[in-house]
């Protein structure tokens, strides 16, 4: 079962004040490659072309998600979402390494709902009985925090992967 405990540093909070300056936002977003809708208001803009579970994504979510990703996921999935080395090869334990979350991996083949379930409940939540090193974060992260991490990951994908994943999500009718 999961060996990692999840987040230790709960001080890295996910809420970004509305008072944040647009300049700061834009520079932060530049690092994630997010395109921001032109807005005159210096408040939480929507991220163009990105939704999560059908809802629009706000720039503050992406920023919060970036920090939460660094704190909770980067140790295995890589600081630049690059995954563990040689991630297609099984470990000696018989389990698979952590795959990349960028476009070189397969994360973008999964619907929003499935990504959420995997992060909250581990891979066993979508493939019954499956053994893996991916921890279940349901105890350590709130639903909003999990969503923020996933929108951050999604925000890094090129257009093709985003569109593919949007379609997979739209077709995901399961419940």
């Amino acid at each position, binding site marked *: 079962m999961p060996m990692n405990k999840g987040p230790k540093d709960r001080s890295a909070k996910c809420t970004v004040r509305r008072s944040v300056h647009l300049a700061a936002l834009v520079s932060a977003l530049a690092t994630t490659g997010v395109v921001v809708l032109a807005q005159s208001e210096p408040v939480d803009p929507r991220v163009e072309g990105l939704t999560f579970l059908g809802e629009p994504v706000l720039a503050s979510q992406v920023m919060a998600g970036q920090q939460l990703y660094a704190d909770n996921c980067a140790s295995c999935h890589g600081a630049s979402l690059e995954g563990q080395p040689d991630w*297609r*090869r*099984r470990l000696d334990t*018989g389990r698979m390494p952590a795959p990349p979350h960028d476009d070189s991996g397969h994360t973008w083949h999964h*619907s929003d709902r499935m990504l959420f379930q995997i992060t909250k409940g581990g891979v066993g939540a979508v493939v*019954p009985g499956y053994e893996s090193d991916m921890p279940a974060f349901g105890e350590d992260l709130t639903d909003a925090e999990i969503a923020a991490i996933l929108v951050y990951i999604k925000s890094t994908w090129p257009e093709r992967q985003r569109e593919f994943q949007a379609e*997979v999500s739209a*077709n*995901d009718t399961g419940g």
Partner: protein
Amino acid sequence: MKSIEIGCRPNRRKVLAAVLGSGLATVLPRLVQAAVDGDPAALAFDGDTILLADRGLFVSDDAGQTWTAAETLGNVLSLATHRDRPGRVVAGLAEGGVSISEDGGASWRIFEARLPDGEITAVAIASRNPDMIYASLRGDGLWKSEDAGATWSLAMDRPWLDDAERELLSLASVELETGMGGIWIYAGTEVGLTRVPDCFCRWQDVQPGNAMDALVAGEAPPSEAPLPGGEPILSLASAPSAPEVMYAALRSGLWASQDGGVIWQKRASKAATAVAVHPRDETYIAALLGGILKISRDGGATWIETGER
């Protein structure tokens, strides 16, 4: 359903035709024995043409009545064809490498950028893309080529079943949606059936589509009748005309599924080593049963005896 009358037993000679005399009987016992032992053999339909790799490659244009031997670039262990690309035949070689024919097996090539050395135990062509070829390398894993064999990359390590990594003995691209923007690749291993979505996220058991919903709802899991456990699955086929119709060749016999591999029923009790299904008729199958090629036109309910016995 009416079965066609054939007598088929490919032999080493160029053409068998109607020669079902005593000469043939002398070569039979050795062949039969080899096949029963699970000696690698492979079958494929290229349109109406049947290809049989059983220590040599044999081609029949008349549903197995007569056979012509074809030259190959090595010892063919596995075969794959595609309904939308008549003439294309992919052959996995015992000596390593995947050779490709574009003329129904008459001529072959192997590209420069070869796979790593090692026996190619199984090959498949992606149902939705005749240029996407999968090959399993013994002791290594599942490789893919997106350009009809010109270049190859590792797609996925071997599956982990019953506490060990397992060889992929058979592969089938099954045109059933995964819900992940693609379709499934089924694989037969030394110990049973497994499958991976064609995004290659993870090997997993074959489960009824609504298994997860039932689990979440706390309901009884949907019924399943898997293939017998612990038995090598030597050959697998999914019908292009009805992908949920699948066939599997095991020592315990020839098995069939009507629901993408959740519920299996035995259709022949002789040890089966190879099976293939016609591209346009999911009930038309060819199989090596007890080392003898037999044909069924009704999904395996009845088989055409070949008469040599």
